[in-house]
């Protein structure tokens, strides 16, 4: 029996509705349990002495003063930890040529970025550990720092890792069709240089881990704020030489992740290694400065790009040359080449065109390592593509909506393969655009813009279509050899009173995973969501899974939950059939009652069935299966990724005297397939948009030429705040994926993917009458005034 999703009156119709979040009460009452809330007996704290320089040979280390601090128990250097922890190398076989040197939990011979952990101090309090860490004396012999991306490969630039030969980590060129030929014959060719700034995720809860090693059991328990507990289990097991079955990673409440908490951090592995060496629980909670200098950074790209169009605005070719600097190491185990690779995969995404060339060049430098952060590569690819499309439209005197309509894949063109060789199962660019134009009342907005201009105000409208990669298969990491699971599992069981417990391999980071799972399980079994208890984030308890990343929780984890719930329903009905002497197929479960499928007449509460199965099983036929627990795993097979699509619009005003941008309104229509919980999806989109607006207007990590981090606090790394945020109106088109019964694709990153491009296009729309254009993010007041030629140096 399949679920009639289109029938809102079907029984147990929780999928598609906004149901309360089961964990909201707990969090609002302050009863959540984050890693830092946990205190174990005999627990100690670790703090790290970190490199103050971007590149240096590590000479003498003098620990005497540090050891003398009251409360300090032990101090560890890189050499000490190297004895118990093997180094890692972050490469993937399918990213051909990607190279990276071995990385240790603490730097051994050389420090390669400001913030790299060098010495670990363990003490009875964090304050004592910090005090001692500040007294660690390391003789740093300065080495030249490589900080500029564009010159990293020049002959006279020093090579950071001489054993690797050069500073090139990875390069990929993709070519389709005849770009040169198309450019030569085009009606117009428009080129531009784009820049996206270095960002970081700024999670409210910093990175946190508490590791306990029980030598008597040979068991490690890590309480960890992570997106991927099973991946971390594998990492600890492998590098600390423990069987996976003896590593338990518990991930309780997490205060935001955005991709920051899906990577292997040297200080966290060091914490685990130290716990194992000392046989005591060790806690590490990053402070805000550590967050800025050691959480992964992202999006530091410089791009030259060109678009060729014919006189009707048809795109003939796109050519992209992308460069990014990733720090001194590729980050384990996902690697730091994925972002550049995504730029190559995603540019031109919404459009039906033939000739495409894109190259990404990924170089080493002496800055904090970069890796995957919410919407990996998308904001960059969308900015390039949508920036070029708008510039082409302006060049042709064509409306930006019109040029998109002329180039987007027709809604009935699917399945289709893009020039970047991405396979699209089913997208809805035109339907989404139509809906957006209606929601924003495009013509009225154009009239308002014109009216404002008469009053000397510069307002602009920016449109950005996009595609988003979700529900990844093993094509993303697994085929490259990484032990990162693309499948996910769920176990659903019925307890004697008829209530249901579901254990899932996907995790809750604050985004509402547990709400989504509870309503799927409720509908799948036939009980109220309040009767469902969701358990996530414990590798010893939940089925093996990949966790939360690449917008996979609902699409992959949700489908596993649905299948497990449906299987439990079938098991229950089989028992019920025997008890009621009815054919199981004539029965159904609704709101916790076994009912007659046709009439809806109540036949037996689940509570009664539970009582018989668990306490009076003697009364049931001997050979009757009675497993009121079912596990299902799900993996996508037909497409490497489930692409989603959408379109955003921004309306804003630029103050041409001060350069300040005021966001007036923002719209997004997106298609994530089946919407399981409208409110959660809308808030994911809004939260994502806000992160994208941060990239467009505020966020930028600054380094000086020597690799010193210049802004390591919330006072000078500006994140978007409520007062500056516009209203965000969200609409949906639903094109479910056929790979699953649920039909859900991901929605977590779409907002971030499209917002920066929408803002860039809106600013340039506002500035166009003044002949100015900006393409370097964030669009600070100063950059805007410089584009307007209003600042003399």
């Amino acid at each position, binding site marked *: 029996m399949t679920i009639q999703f289109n029938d809102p009156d079907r029984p147990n119709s929780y999928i598609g509705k906004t149901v309360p979040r089961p964990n909201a009460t707990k969090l609002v009452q302050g009863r959540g349990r984050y890693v830092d809330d946990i205190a174990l007996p005999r627990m100690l704290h670790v703090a790290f002495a970190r490199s103050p320089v971007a590149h240096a040979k590590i000479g003498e280390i003098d620990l005497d003063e540090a050891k003398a601090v009251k409360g300090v128990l032990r101090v560890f250097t890189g050499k000490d930890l190297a004895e118990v922890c093997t180094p890692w190398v972050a490469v993937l076989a399918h990213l051909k040529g990607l190279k990276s040197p071995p990385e240790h939990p603490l730097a051994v011979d050389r420090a390669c970025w400001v913030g790299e952990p060098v010495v670990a101090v363990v003490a009875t309090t964090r304050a004592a550990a910090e005090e001692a860490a500040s007294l660690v004396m390391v003789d740093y012999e300065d080495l030249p720092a490589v900080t500029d991306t564009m010159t990293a490969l020049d002959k006279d630039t020093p090579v950071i890792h001489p054993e690797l030969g050069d500073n090139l980590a990875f390069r990929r060129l993709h070519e389709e069709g005849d770009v040169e030929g198309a450019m030569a014959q085009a009606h117009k060719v428009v080129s531009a240089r784009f820049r996206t700034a270095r960002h970081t995720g700024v999670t409210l809860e910093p990175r946190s881990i508490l590791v306990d090693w029980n030598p008597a059991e040979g068991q490690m328990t890590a309480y960890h704020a992570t997106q991927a507990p099973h991946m971390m289990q594998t990492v600890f097991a492998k590098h600390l030489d423990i069987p996976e079955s003896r590593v338990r990673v518990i991930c309780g409440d997490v205060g935001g992740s955005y991709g920051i908490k899906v990577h292997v951090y040297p200080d966290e592995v060091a914490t685990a290694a130290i716990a194992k060496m000392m046989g005591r629980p060790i806690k590490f909670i990053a*402070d805000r400065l550590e967050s800025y200098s050691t959480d992964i950074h992202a999006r530091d790209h410089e791009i030259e790009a060109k678009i060729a169009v014919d006189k009707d605005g048809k795109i003939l070719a796109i050519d992209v040359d992308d460069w990014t600097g990733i720090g001194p190491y590729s980050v384990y185990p996902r690697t730091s080449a994925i972002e550049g690779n995504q730029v190559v995969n995603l540019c031109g995404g919404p459009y039906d065109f033939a000739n495409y060339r894109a190259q990404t060049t990924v170089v080493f430098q002496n800055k904090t390592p970069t890796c995957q952060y919410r919407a990996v590569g998308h904001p960059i690819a969308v900015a390039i593509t949508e920036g070029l499309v708008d510039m082409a439209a302006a060049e042709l005197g064509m409306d930006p909506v019109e040029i998109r309509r002329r180039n987007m894949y027709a809604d009935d063109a699917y399945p289709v393969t893009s020039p970047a060789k991405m396979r699209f199962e089913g997208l809805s660019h035109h339907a989404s655009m139509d809906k957006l134009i209606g929601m924003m009342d495009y013509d009225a907005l154009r009239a308002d813009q014109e009216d404002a201009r008469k009053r000397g105000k510069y307002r602009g409208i920016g449109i950005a279509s996009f595609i988003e990669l979700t529900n990844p298969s093993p094509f993303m990491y697994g085929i490259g050899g990484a032990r990162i699971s693309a499948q996910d599992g769920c176990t659903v069981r019925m307890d004697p009173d008829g209530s249901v417990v579901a254990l899932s391999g996907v995790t809750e980071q604050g985004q509402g995973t547990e709400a989504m799972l509870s309503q799927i399980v409720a509908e799948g079994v036939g009980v109220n969501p309040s009767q469902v208890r969701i358990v996530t984030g414990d590798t010893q308890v939940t089925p093996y899974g990949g966790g939360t990343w690449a917008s996979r929780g609902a699409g992959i984890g949700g489908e596993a939950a649905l299948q497990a719930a449906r299987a439990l329903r079938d098991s229950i009905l089989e028992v019920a059939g025997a008890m009621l002497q009815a054919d199981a197929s004539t029965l159904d479960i609704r709101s916790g009652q076994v009912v007659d499928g046709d009439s809806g007449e109540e036949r037996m509460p689940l509570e009664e069935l539970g009582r018989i199965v668990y306490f009076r099983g003697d009364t049931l036929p001997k050979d009757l299966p009675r497993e009121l627990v079912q596990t299902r795993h799900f993996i996508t097979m037909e497409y490497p990724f489930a692409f989603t699509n959408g379109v955003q619009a921004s309306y804003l005003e630029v103050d041409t005297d001060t*350069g300040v941008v005021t966001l007036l309104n923002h719209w997004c229509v997106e298609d994530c397939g089946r919407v399981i919980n409208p409110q959660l999806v809308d808030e994911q989109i809004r939260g994502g948009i806000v992160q994208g607006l941060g990239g467009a207007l505020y966020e930028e990590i600054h380094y000086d030429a020597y690799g010193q981090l210049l802004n390591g606090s919330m006072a000078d790394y500006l994140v978007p705040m409520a*007062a*500056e945020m516009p209203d965000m109106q969200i609409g949906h088109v639903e094109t479910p994926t056929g790979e699953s019964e649920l039909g859900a694709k991901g929605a977590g990153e779409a907002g971030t993917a499209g917002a920066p491009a929408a803002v860039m296009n809106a600013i340039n729309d506002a500035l166009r009458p003044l002949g100015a254009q900006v393409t370097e993010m964030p669009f*600070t007041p100063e950059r805007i005034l410089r584009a307007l030629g209003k600042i003399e140096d």
Partner: protein
Amino acid sequence: MKASAAGYARAENLRHAIEMLVASEGEGRVLAGGQSLVAAMNMRLSAGDLLVDISRLNELSGVSQEGDTVRIGALTRHAQVGADPIVRARVPLLAAAVAHIAHAAIRNRGTIGGALAHADPAAEFPACALALGAEIHVEGPEGDRSIPAEDFFEDVFTTALEEDEILTALSVPAAETGEVQLIEEVARRSGDYALAGLCLVRRAKGHRVALFSVGPKPILATGAMTALDAGDVDGAVAALTSEIDPPSDTQASAAYRRHLAGVLLRRAVARLEGDRT
């Protein structure tokens, strides 16, 4: 990071506080609203201080008017300054400035005395004090003294306060009829320190212009004032941009700040003229 203070004591009265400062031999540090000091301690930009907490000294809080002078106690919180009827009527500049300072939670704790003593070059109140021609009252082991705002601010985070002196109050001439007081600033986000800011006061005696976030301390733009007195706005903007030597940092370059100062002056003057009509 964890803060490290060498000690903490709560003062029972002003004398007690001064005695503790004297006894600490230069290691003492006054704690008022804590909105700058505690942040600095938590980043270990300030460590090892002996904290002398004056926040409970009620005698240092509140607003009063004596004749043509409005006196504001050092411990008056930003939010109280903004809501006080005397301030709103007779020193509207200070009330208007409050809306630009930080966020509600910080305005509920931060004190005007703390803001003046801290002397952040990007802070609003020091520039307001300068534009208003305020007197700053301090008390030390030898008794009290008053320092004109023009002599009080010396450099980045540096004032004419001695180590064992406490800022007790600020007094400002109450606005005369027809006086106009305006503040203009541009910040990246609401509540952020300004990229540049400007206070403009027009009195019968003439204009006063003070700027913040354009140098190591708040600046009285005397050249611009003279030009404004002569009715020459372009001249005032030209004078202003040569009177300041703004810093460059990750938020904005000196050139941007200089440009902004001129824009702010023009905007303030436009508002003055709007007032006249």
